[in-house]
């Protein structure tokens, strides 16, 4: 794989024998050039950060630098030549504007970036004195950097000083620790100081420190062990367990015990099919004595229509199936159906993606083309494809080299070239185009260099594609090639996050060398498993949900309470808006009506975002608007508006008081209060209520109720109101609102 920058992590076994130049305050290198010596200072002192002089547009206050110095030519231009060279004073170097501002000797919006007696200052002064050389072609070039030490265990609250060495083309090795930038990929676990001192906190797990110097990046991997006795681990069911347990043993985190049947039933139903189990399903499962019943449940759920609904819902939003105008309804419904049908029939993932990318024709004949309706420009198309299917956020590379990764603008535009032969012809339906391949050689213009670039898969060589060949097909084939390092990994990581709340790479669509997976062996094994299965999406769900790891309880023990990364317990999360609404309806025995859809349609089956406007519940609980390819568009945190909605909205109040609702029906039938409470608990939690809960609930149901005048209410009415209250209360318990 071609790589633009040489940043990598090496173990240099004989570094003591390589010539080593240490830089002390009064020890200046023989040759001071802009490119090797001054540019790093601008990065270290943060002059060229995105909030300051590298701000998009005009920089800051008329002084513009390239982001993290990716374009030293330009930076040299701006510092030395712009404005008739007003920023540097060769005759009196200490008086240079660059230095006066940098030391805040004259007012500087950015404050003091370095002291007048610092190495940085001294170096810049000397460089100006020597005539501000840029650097010659014949100078030694920076080839790579490496970080010492390598992966180690850091005790909680421990610290470690890193050493960064820069390797040059002439064999020289310099200690550039002072000029490197350090950043933790998980600040809750460890922090990095400017000096390269790493301080671990107390959360156990794996983290990485990104090290940056002069456009090269390197990674320091470490972990904070907990060191507790993991106890007797359950027998591993599959490779997921083997690899998770290996990590747990290494870090020393004892897992929580396996969850009980009721918990597993509810959890798996919610995670796979987006719904609560029915009372019948619950009773059948709980009474089943077959030792393999959990595995069987997974198969049943995977065959259910709920699975297709729930995952079509996820992908539909990420594929921006959005209603902007009334006319969109047709194509949105068609697109959603295509997705859902594909998932229902278990179409292989690579085939689904291929059908989407290479979609040709009109919406009626080929609903997948509707994606091109939303995502129209090559820039947006490549960004969405990269983020969704490859887990790579390319956006930054459009205007400058990606700050933390190896992608350059050339990579960006090379990738966009795959989308430059897409033809559109309007049809009789406004907004719907016919999509087709326009004959011709695919190229794109790199907006920085103004040169043409041919389609280039990420990390690979430029391709020459014949005019009659659809470059999108070439792209789809490259993605589904078993050697592709992104495609399978991105998918399994996304689904891992779906079931475990935290991706092995997190955020799930932000794969970078500088954001490594917390368990690389597991990620690779999952990806290989997926590829070997022929990209069978169900096989990934199966291996995850059938594992012991997935079935750990959510109650923490004293040791694993702090674990948020290693899956020693199930991390509970709030039900999503659609699932929450459907669950409320299921418990309350009601429905929500959705326009143009049959009564009884579940929220999880809704084909597009337009229903958010009418059903305020969905907006308030964070159903995404389908504007972004990031699953983070879905709001998963609580808010005042949510609480108000549950407490006092018309929608909820009316729902609970509907005639024919469960409260109504129960109040009229001949069941005892005890049986009524049992039915509610079985529906809501897939378990029987315990004695304490029965006591509280039954007491509430038998409490006499008075009307406004003070007379006792009719017993059936009173019972109904009491049941409505009880249902409301259950709907608002954490046990209901969370999947745990």
């Amino acid at each position: 794989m071609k790589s633009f920058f040489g940043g990598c992590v090496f173990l240099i076994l004989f570094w003591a024998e390589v010539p080593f130049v240490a830089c002390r305050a009064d020890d200046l290198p023989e040759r001071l050039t802009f490119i090797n010596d001054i540019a790093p200072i601008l990065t270290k002192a943060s002059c060229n950060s995105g909030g300051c002089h590298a701000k998009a547009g005009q920089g800051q206050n008329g002084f513009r630098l390239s982001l993290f110095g990716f374009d030293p030519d330009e930076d040299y231009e701006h510092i030395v030549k712009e404005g008739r060279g007003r920023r540097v004073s060769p005759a009196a170097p200490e008086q240079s504007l660059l230095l006066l501002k940098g030391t805040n000797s004259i007012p500087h919006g950015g404050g003091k970036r370095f002291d007048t007696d610092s190495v940085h200052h001294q170096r810049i002064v000397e460089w100006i004195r020597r005539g501000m050389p840029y650097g010659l072609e014949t100078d030694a070039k920076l080839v790579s950097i490496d970080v010492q030490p390598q992966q180690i265990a850091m005790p909680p609250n421990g610290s470690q000083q890193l050493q960064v060495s820069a390797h040059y083309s002439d064999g020289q090795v310099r200690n550039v620790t002072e000029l490197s930038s350090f950043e933790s990929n998980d600040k809750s676990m460890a922090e990095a100081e400017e000096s390269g001192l790493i301080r671990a906190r107390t959360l156990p797990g794996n983290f990485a420190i990104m090290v940056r110097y002069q456009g090269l990046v390197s990674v320091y991997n470490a972990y904070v062990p907990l060191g507790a006795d993991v106890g007797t681990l359950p027998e591993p069911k599959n490779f997921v367990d083997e690899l998770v347990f290996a990590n747990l043993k290494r870090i020393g985190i004892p897992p929580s015990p396996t969850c009980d049947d009721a918990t597993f039933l509810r959890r798996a139903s919610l995670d796979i099919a987006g719904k609560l189990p029915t009372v019948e399903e619950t009773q059948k499962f709980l009474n089943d004595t077959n030792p393999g019943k959990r595995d069987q449940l997974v198969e049943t759920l995977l065959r259910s229509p709920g699975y297709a609904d729930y995952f079509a819902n996820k992908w539909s939003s990420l594929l921006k199936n959005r209603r902007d105008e009334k006319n969109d309804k047709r194509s949105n419904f068609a697109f959603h159906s295509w997705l859902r049908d594909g998932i229902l029939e278990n179409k292989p993932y690579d085939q689904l993606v291929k059908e989407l990318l290479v979609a040709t024709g009109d919406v009626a004949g080929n609903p997948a083309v509707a994606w091109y309706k939303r995502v129209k420009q090559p820039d947006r198309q490549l960004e969405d494809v990269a983020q969704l299917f490859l887990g790579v956020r390319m956006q930054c590379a459009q205007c400058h080299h990606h700050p933390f990764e190896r992608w350059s603008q050339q990579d960006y535009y090379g990738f966009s070239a795959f989308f430059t032969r897409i033809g559109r012809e309007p049809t009789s339906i406004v907004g719907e185009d016919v999509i087709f391949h326009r004959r011709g050689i695919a190229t794109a213009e790199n907006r920085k260099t103004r040169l043409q670039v041919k389609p280039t898969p990420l990390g690979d060589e430029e391709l020459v594609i014949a005019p009659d060949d659809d470059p999108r097909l070439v792209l789809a084939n490259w993605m589904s090639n078993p050697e592709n390092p992104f495609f399978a990994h991105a998918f399994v990581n996304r689904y891992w996050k779906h079931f475990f709340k935290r991706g092995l790479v997190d955020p799930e669509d932000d794969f970078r060398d500088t954001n490594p997976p917390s368990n690389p062996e597991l990620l690779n094994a999952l990806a290989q498993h997926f590829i070997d299965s022929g990209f069978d999406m169900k096989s990934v769900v199966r291996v995850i949900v059938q594992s012991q790891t997935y079935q750990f309880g959510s109650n923490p023990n004293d040791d694993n309470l702090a674990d948020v990364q290693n899956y020693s317990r199930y991390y509970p999360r709030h039900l999503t808006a659609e699932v929450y609404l459907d669950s409320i309806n299921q418990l309350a025995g009601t429905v929500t009506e959705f326009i143009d859809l049959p009564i009884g349609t579940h929220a999880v089956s809704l084909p597009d975002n337009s229903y958010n406007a009418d059903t305020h519940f969905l907006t308030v609980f964070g159903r995404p608007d389908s504007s972004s390819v990031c699953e983070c568009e879905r709001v998963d945190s609580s808010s005042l508006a949510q609480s108000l909605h549950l407490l006092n909205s018309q929608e909820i109040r009316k729902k609970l008081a509907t005639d024919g609702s469960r409260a109504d029906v129960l109040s009229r039938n001949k069941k005892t209060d005890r049986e009524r409470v049992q039915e509610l608990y079985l529906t809501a939690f897939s378990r029987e209520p315990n004695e304490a809960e029965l006591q509280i609930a039954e007491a509430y149901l038998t409490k006499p109720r008075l009307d406004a005048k003070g007379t006792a209410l009719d017993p059936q009415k009173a019972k109904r109101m009491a049941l409505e209250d009880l249902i409301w209360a259950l709907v608002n318990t954490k046990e209901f609102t969370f999947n745990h």
Partner: protein
Amino acid sequence: MNHDQRSHCCGPVKRRDFMKLGLAGFGSLTWPGLLKLKAENAQKSGSEKTAVIMVWLHGGLSHMDTYDPKPDIGSEYRGPFDVIDTNVPGVQITELLPHHARIADKFNIVRSMYHRSADHPAGTMNLLSGDFEARGRVKPKFPDWMSVASYMRSQAEGQRTNPLPNYIGVCHPQEYIGPAYLGNAYLPFGVEGDLTQQKFEVPNVGLSDVAEAARLGDRVALRQSLDLLERRFDRAMELQAVDEFEAQAMTLLTNPQTRDAFDLSQEDPATRDRYGRNQWGQQLLMSRRLIEAGVDIVTSALVGPLCGRVANWDDHAVNHHIFNGLRFRSEPYDQAVTALIEDIYERGLDQRVLVVVTGEFGRTPKIEYDRSTGPGNASAPTGVIQPGRDHWPRAFSNLWAGGGMRTGQVIGATDRRGEDVIERGCKAGDFLATIYQHLGIDYSHVMIEDFNGRPTAIVDDGKAIPELARVS
């Protein structure tokens, strides 16, 4: 082994719960000092939190006919209104606003606002969220300043002690504005309806029905007694947040003191008269009342029937006879806005509270003529030619008061015909910066991640207008 789990900010760092200064976890796109910058540090903490009231003139206020009159030019530009002196020597405004003229020493007029976004969505998104490329967007791409401020204040605050939400919209439709990638938690709490009614009640505030309130209390109590789920698993304090919001919601719904904040009948009738017994007057009175009760950000849109047929300030000739429209609305506008400004000063709120009155752009200096598309208030019958002005972002005016600033100033100037800014131009970024500065938000350095993880500045290009800075 002693693991003190409570000693640090902890838990999975959620994108929205933690103001990030860089891509996931990798923070320092700004200087190292900002690595540790949290919202608390970004806000200068005084004993009282500053606040802002924005009065929104949806559609675009005609600068030529109000705050930036040009009495000496030709009648194709000038309009029929005379100018009057104000109580600030040398400053003249339209004769339509005599109350304004009487108290000009209490506010500042900026005459040199400008930007390049000519339609309503783009103009609004540009001015209020700094999106200078907003053309063609249906929904805002960037969060508006109100939701940013609400977000920053929420982060700084920790546990909220005041049950009132920190951002309230009084009759302010969420058109072209919104929290974008901040998420719906930062939408405003809405106060809608006819505020002139004696028995006006805000939905979700103060259940007046005692039986309803009691039932709600019963429900919550029952829920609490049944809610036995082990909370210890909640490392991210998510459950605690739910409980806090529920408590806040219950207070809003059942606490009489919270109800009072929204109860205009508790105001002196003389005050209600002074603002004007109409929707606008009562809206601005409500805004003042909420600010006094501790709300941080209140916006209120002066729209609806009081504007005229088309219900806003968008005085194209096809919509309204612009001059009849301005005459039609000048009295309630003049009265309400000046009552608010005077009230802020009289009640000693002027240090804490900034008041800004603005639309999304100005209107064409050259008067245009076209056929009315319908009869109604301030509009001739269908087909009749009437005068109007179209959108004009190149120059427009707005009003500023309170905020501890020096008042009685006119800042900036436009050319003879009111077409272009010739002095002290103020961009949308400057507008935003001025407001953020008042709120103590470090506008030139704060960055918030969008959906792609890209840190995005809250003010791309702008500086707080120095003439509007706090002097006391």
